[in-house]
């Protein structure tokens, strides 16, 4: 997605409420079950489908401390065709919860851009919860590398 500065600002602002979960420095890396549980807590136990939501993230992070991601959900944002919220998880971080974006009809579009810290190579997961109760998921592996030997 190509955005100019103003559009990008509008889009970020359009997420009416952004809850950032700080990266807790836990003793153990998030287990797959932990991530799975977070998804189930968010969806109310419903297995997410693919489609509707698209997550854009770099294949290889340029800087693991600040990895830009964009999430977009196809939705008219009216009536039943409404995105309620989007959960972002990083399954290899000590605390997998990265952010939850909540949307309203006033959001206009269900899209958001943020930056996150990734401790190591892992999957970034985005789950969207719709007003009609359906849930959708997209996932992308982001590699965190030492770098420096290509050419």
């Amino acid at each position, binding site marked *: 997605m190509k955005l100019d500065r103003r559009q990008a600002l509008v889009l970020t602002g359009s997420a009416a409420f952004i809850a950032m979960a700080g990266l807790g420095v836990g003793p153990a890396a998030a287990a797959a079950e932990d991530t799975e549980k977070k998804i189930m807590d968010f969806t109310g136990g419903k297995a997410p489908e693919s489609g509707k939501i698209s997550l854009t993230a770099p*294949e290889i992070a*340029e800087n693991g401390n600040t990895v830009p991601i964009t999430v977009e959900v196809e939705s008219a944002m009216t009536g039943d065709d409404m995105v309620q919220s989007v959960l972002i998880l990083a399954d290899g971080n000590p605390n997998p919860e990265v952010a939850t974006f909540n949307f309203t009809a006033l959001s206009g579009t269900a899209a958001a851009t943020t930056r996150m810290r990734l401790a190591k190579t892992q999957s970034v997961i985005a789950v969207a919860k719709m007003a009609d109760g359906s849930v959708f998921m997209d996932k992308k592996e982001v590699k965190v590398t030492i770098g420096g030997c290509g050419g």
Partner: protein
Amino acid sequence: MLSRREFLMATAALSAITGPGLVGKWSRAAAQQALSEDVLLEFEPFGNLTLVHITDIHAQLMPVYFREPSINLGAGAAAGLPPHVSGSDFLKLYKIEPGSPHAYTLTSEDFAALAKTYGKMGGLDRIATIIKRIRSARGDNMLLLDGGDTWQGSYTSLKTKGQDMVDAFNALAPDAMTGHWEFTYGADRVQEIIEGLSFPFLGGNIYDAEWNEPAFDAYKMFEKGGVKIAVLGQAFPYTPIANPRWMFPNWSFGIREEDVAKNVESARAEGAELVVLLSHNGFDVDRAMASRIEGIDVILTGHTHDALPEPVLVGKTLLIASGSHGKFLSRLDLDVRGGEVKGFRHRLIPVFSDVITPDADMTKLVADLRAPYEAELKRELATTQGLLYRRGNFNGTFDDLICQALLEVREADIALSPGFRWGTSVLPGQAITVEDLHNACAMTYPAAYRSTMTGQMLKDILEDVADNLFNKDPYYQQGGDMVRVGGMGYAIDPEGAMGSRVSKMTLLKTGEAIDSAKEYAVAGWASVNEATEGPPIWEVVETYLTSHKVVTPEENRSVEIIG
């Protein structure tokens, strides 16, 4: 692996439907031992426009020796497919006679002997002759496109911060370029050069890191031969990872496939009848991209330095691989009608410097550019008894020499040298000059560091680089080759998973297994970290050569390939 027959069927399919091509003619041309400029450049013009592609010249103004790799493994779906075919397999695949001129240019077989017969390749004055000749045949119905890695890789380019190449390429007058190593001159210098270019520097995948918006033009529209052409530029996606990000902190790169797709759509909406991707992605990334994005007619590939005598066809997309270091130019004639490619004719033109007449204007320009440095360029440091070369997945004799120098001069247990694919060859019996040495290490972050690393850290580095090279998904590969290691042997299973490819790490001087907890003295160069300390690598190698006036490269047996 695709058989020669299947492979030809794939490319012939398009040319059979759409008109005559050169496919198949190559083998006849290859069988001809007689070389002349007319034979090399003979090309019956075809269709309504011509693309000429040059890429990865790495600042080689003069003819050079450049040995192709003897090992160039492909990962995942690319295993065994061109360009991951080398040596005698390559000769068989393309029906090239061993010992022929084309065998010399395209493979490593008998390289040192054939080099003496067929001479050096490239040279910008020879390239200028070829371009002028095509221009005179095609008039204005031609685009000359430069895939980047143009400004870096030689003594003179380092001293002039790329200006020698900028001046020489301005004289060649390309229509567009993209880049990679260009950025290692730093953002200010890159911007300064771009402002003075008479052609666009394209890079749709380069973003302003702060505002997350495009920082460069993604494409340019041309009209040639009555055809509207969009040329999209794609810079090397992992420039800030493979090279020092601190030198251009405000630019972010990445593959950004969704942007490429969107730009193809916008170009088509603007009326483009032909869409060309001028790419520095690397061949396997381009092959994947061609299969995932609709509407790209031609990808001019770069970065991975592959030279292929025939296009690779992916769906309806032609992939062209034009080699490196000025050894080759690709000429692609296209018949574009009704917004469609109806046929093509292609030739990978080998630039035999002893056969192609130098262009006098360019000869003079290059001589003028080099004049202030001529004495230093020629200064002899030592003599080599064997062939010095770089290309290969795991090692090259020039890198072995650099590693030896690091071990001895920096008094280290283990040496690391990056797996660059640029750098020229020196023949047995020849002197190693300052120019030769700089062809292997001229760059803007040359500090030869010395530090201690645990066995675990060394393992992590090797695994990390191996995954950048052998990840089964090309979008996760960075190109380049395996980091070269001196003083330590190891085994590698390229098909293994991340973290489990490397084993049997052994300290060569004692024969002991590397202890993951123990610290070792490690010397290396080209760190991407800011404020790395140490003398420039060329000083380290020069110091080493003052006490080793004759070097004897030997086959490197310290890397065992398993699996």
